[in-house]
């Protein structure tokens, strides 16, 4: 059912029902009020009549009583009858022309001595009558009754009822008319509203409700229009978002495809260009994140030979390619003069930049991992080579020195044995010489063993061991060695001491082999958290970009130092300038602290 008809029907129904109820209620109220008024007047009239009749009735003047009753009957237009009962209740004096019906006295008499008044409703030939009875005097059985017709009440009640019914009928007609007008007034805008809403519901979001009123309907229409605008914006945003998500998805798919870096970046740029309707885009990788310059890694839709975009195009960027807060490069996009770029597009480009940054970092990590594996293989080979070299050295030294000494001692012992009996004095002299040879052999064996791992490192600590090693290797070359220790004088964990000693040993070896230095300074600084060791010489140095021996990469010895430091979570930095010497700084963190046994700087 339409709203207008519903308003008319509901309003009319309410008015009709309210009118009917009002008629009924007012009819009842008026009847009660009139009845109560009639009762009060009837009782008052009966009391007045009783006072008037008291003395003649008590005196037995029945003629006077009868005359007074008839006069009262005639003077009261609504009085139907009046009668009085004598104190002995044996006689009734009344005004009824056809005699007194015994039934009337039986119905209307006062029921007991305590009750002073009574009201009875009678239906007679003259209509409804109300009988009002009062006791003549308190304490006597004499009664006076007055019968009053209800006709005036009925007539008045009927008149009031008809008046209210008429007013209610007029009210119903007026209410229906007003509700029709109201229905048109309210439902008209709502119907237009409904038509527009249906159109909007079909997807035509360019519709607008035109309501000029400032009431609730106007507020509703304005709210609806705002809602449509927001819906339109939301849908547009959703579309843009979908486009962005598609681009992001494509970029994600590409960067996870595992292709080579250049092809991956080119494909990603192609997707971005298509998704955002760009003229072109290019990516620059920067080896130094702080530097704006760098190498163009990929480009689509743009001729980088002519970087000026021209008046019809604009460059947007740089869009950083970041990963883990670190910039790995940037991306520039070439926009058409009329290409709108929203904040969402910018966000999407930043997201793509992050994705590409992540992909770049992953690929760089893979590259570094591959390099590291190569270095580890080289180091392992070096270890094997070093072991072989060490074995060869030990074998050579045993063969060239110890073995020769032992052979000479053996020959000397044989000669001594032959001379003992023949020439004891010479034999004794040989033995003295053999003893010296034996002592020399023992020192040579001791040196071999000490070269493998000096017991000094275990017994007295890092600094004395470094001092011994440097002196052992460099004193013969005339290099002045200075070893100093600072900070805490406590021992560091054995693995830390061993690592630092090996790094220092490698550095000392390099100085001995390549540096041609005059001075070497070794400094060890220890605190609660770390150990810093620096080894500096004033030798010939080398070019860090080019290995000293002309190889492309750093020598394995230098890489081994860094590897040793990194195994304990530390670092090793090597700085060298040709003809200005070399400085190596090693930092090893102390996770377990220092030991309590002390060492000194020898």
């Amino acid at each position, binding site marked *: 059912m339409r709203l207008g008809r519903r308003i008319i029907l509901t309003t009319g129904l309410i008015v009709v029902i309210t009118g009917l109820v009002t008629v009924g209620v007012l009819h009842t109220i008026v009847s009660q009020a009139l009845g109560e008024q009639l009762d009060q007047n009837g009782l008052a009239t009966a009391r007045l009549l009783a006072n008037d009749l008291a003395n003649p009735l008590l005196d*037995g003047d029945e003629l006077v009583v009868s005359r007074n009753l008839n006069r009262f009957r005639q003077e009261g237009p609504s009085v139907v009858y009046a009668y009085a009962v004598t104190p002995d209740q044996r006689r009734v004096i009344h005004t009824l022309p056809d005699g007194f019906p015994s039934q009337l*006295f039986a119905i209307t008499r006062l029921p007991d001595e305590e009750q002073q008044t009574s009201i009875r409703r009678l*239906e007679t030939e003259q209509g409804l009558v109300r009988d009002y009875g009062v006791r003549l005097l308190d304490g006597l059985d004499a009664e006076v009754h007055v019968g009053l017709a209800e006709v005036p009440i009925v007539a008045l009640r009927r008149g009031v009822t008809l008046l209210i019914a008429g007013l209610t009928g007029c009210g119903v007609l007026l209410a229906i008319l007003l509700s029709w007008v109201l229905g048109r007034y309210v439902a008209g805008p709502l119907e237009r509203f409904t038509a527009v809403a249906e159109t909007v519901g079909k997807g035509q979001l360019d519709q607008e409700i035109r309501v000029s009123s400032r009431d609730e309907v106007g507020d509703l229409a304005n709210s609806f229009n705002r809602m449509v605008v927001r819906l339109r914006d939301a849908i547009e945003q959703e579309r843009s978002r979908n486009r962005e998500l598609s681009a992001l998805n494509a970029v994600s798919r590409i960067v996870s495809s595992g292709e080579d870096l250049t092809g991956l970046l080119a494909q990603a740029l192609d997707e971005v260009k298509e998704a955002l309707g760009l003229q072109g885009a290019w990516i620059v990788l920067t080896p130094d994140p702080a530097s704006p310059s760098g190498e163009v890694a990929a480009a689509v839709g743009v001729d980088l030979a002519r970087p000026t975009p021209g008046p019809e195009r604009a460059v947007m960027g740089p869009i950083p390619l970041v990963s883990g807060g670190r910039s790995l490069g940037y991306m520039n996009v070439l926009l058409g003069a009329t290409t709108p770029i929203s904040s969402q597009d910018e966000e999407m480009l930043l997201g793509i930049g992050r994705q590409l940054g992540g992909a770049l970092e992953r690929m760089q990590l893979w590259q570094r991992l591959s390099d590291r594996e190569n270095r580890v293989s080289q180091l392992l080979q070096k270890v094997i080579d070093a072991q072989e070299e060490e074995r060869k050295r030990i074998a050579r030294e045993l063969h060239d020195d110890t073995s020769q000494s032992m052979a000479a001692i053996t020959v000397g012992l044989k000669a001594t044995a032959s001379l003992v009996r023949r020439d004891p004095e010479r034999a004794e002299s040989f033995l003295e010489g053999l003893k010296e040879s034996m002592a020399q052999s023992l020192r040579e064996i001791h040196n071999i063993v000490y070269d493998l791992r000096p017991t000094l490192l275990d017994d007295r600590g890092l600094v004395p061991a470094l001092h011994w090693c440097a002196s052992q290797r460099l004193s013969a070359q005339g290099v002045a060695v200075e070893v100093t220790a600072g900070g805490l004088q406590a021992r560091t964990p054995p693995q830390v001491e061993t690592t630092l000693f090996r790094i220092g040993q490698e550095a000392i070896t390099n100085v001995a082999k390549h540096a041609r230095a005059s001075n070497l300074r070794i400094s060890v600084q220890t605190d609660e958290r770390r150990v810093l060791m620096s080894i500096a010489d004033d030798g010939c140095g080398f070019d860090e970009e080019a290995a000293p021996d002309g190889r492309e990469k750093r020598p394995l010895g230098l890489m081994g130092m860094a590897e040793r430091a990194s195994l304990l979570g530390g670092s090793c930095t090597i700085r060298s300038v040709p003809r200005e010497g070399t400085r190596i700084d090693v930092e090893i963190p102390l996770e377990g602290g220092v030991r309590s046994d002390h060492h000194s700087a020898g």
Partner: protein
Amino acid sequence: MPCLRASLLMMLLITFLLAGCGPGEIHQVSLTAGATTGSTFVAAKEPEPEPNLFYFGFDRRLDASEDVRMYVPFLRYLERTTGYRFKLRPLNRTGSVVDALGAETVHFAAIGTLSYLDAHKRYGVEALALAKTADGRAEYRALVIVRPDSPIERLWDLRDHSLALGSPSSTQGNLIPRVMLQQAGIAMSELSAFQNHSSHFETANAVLNGRFDAGAVQDTLGRELARKGLVRIVAESDPFPSSTISVVSGVPDEVVEEVRRALLAFDPTERDSEGLYNWEQSEMPLGFLPVDQDALNEVQRLAELVGLLQ
């Protein structure tokens, strides 16, 4: 829609409730089916006597309805005190309390000395108590009153003037005035006219409206009218025994004794004054005293002397 239904139900409920508050039962009566065609109707037979219900009569003293209003609260005092029921039985103008006592349609009565002596002589009625009048004694007096502008100054001046008297059974209204005239040497025949009236009120009215030159009334009423300046008192009698509360011989002794005790204990000025109506204007404004038989005998002698008691 639920609100609309609820509103309709509420309105209907209110309507039904209001409709249920209308007048009571309607009785069918035919006003044309009368049992008699006259203006009066004999309603019922004499009611059957009820145990412990006693009827009380009285000598009419004032206006009839005023007498009723005065005695009804007194009877309620007797009912409260004795536990018996008492109902007033007023007699019409022509009725005689003495005859009602004789017929025992009245069991107790407030009657004057003369009526008591008549009832005692004829029906054996006994006096239970005497009224205690304003001076605290069981006596009252009769007064002769005239209008304020009357030329009558003394009782002697009544000769050749008219005199209004009370009921022939009234002590103050008839017996005592006759004794006063006799003592003054005025014979009834020397009056220009005299007439008995049913009550002291009627006697006083007869003087006030000029129908009679003088009237004989009870002392309390005469003094009240004089105090208001309506009349002037020209003569006052000697004290006579006051009114009595008398009882017929058929009433059981225990009832008689209960009533006697209640009468003698009656205190209309203080304890039992609540609910009484104009009791101070009665002939027993202060209650009751025991019977003085000698005084009653004297009154009997005087009544016989003036011919009021045969």
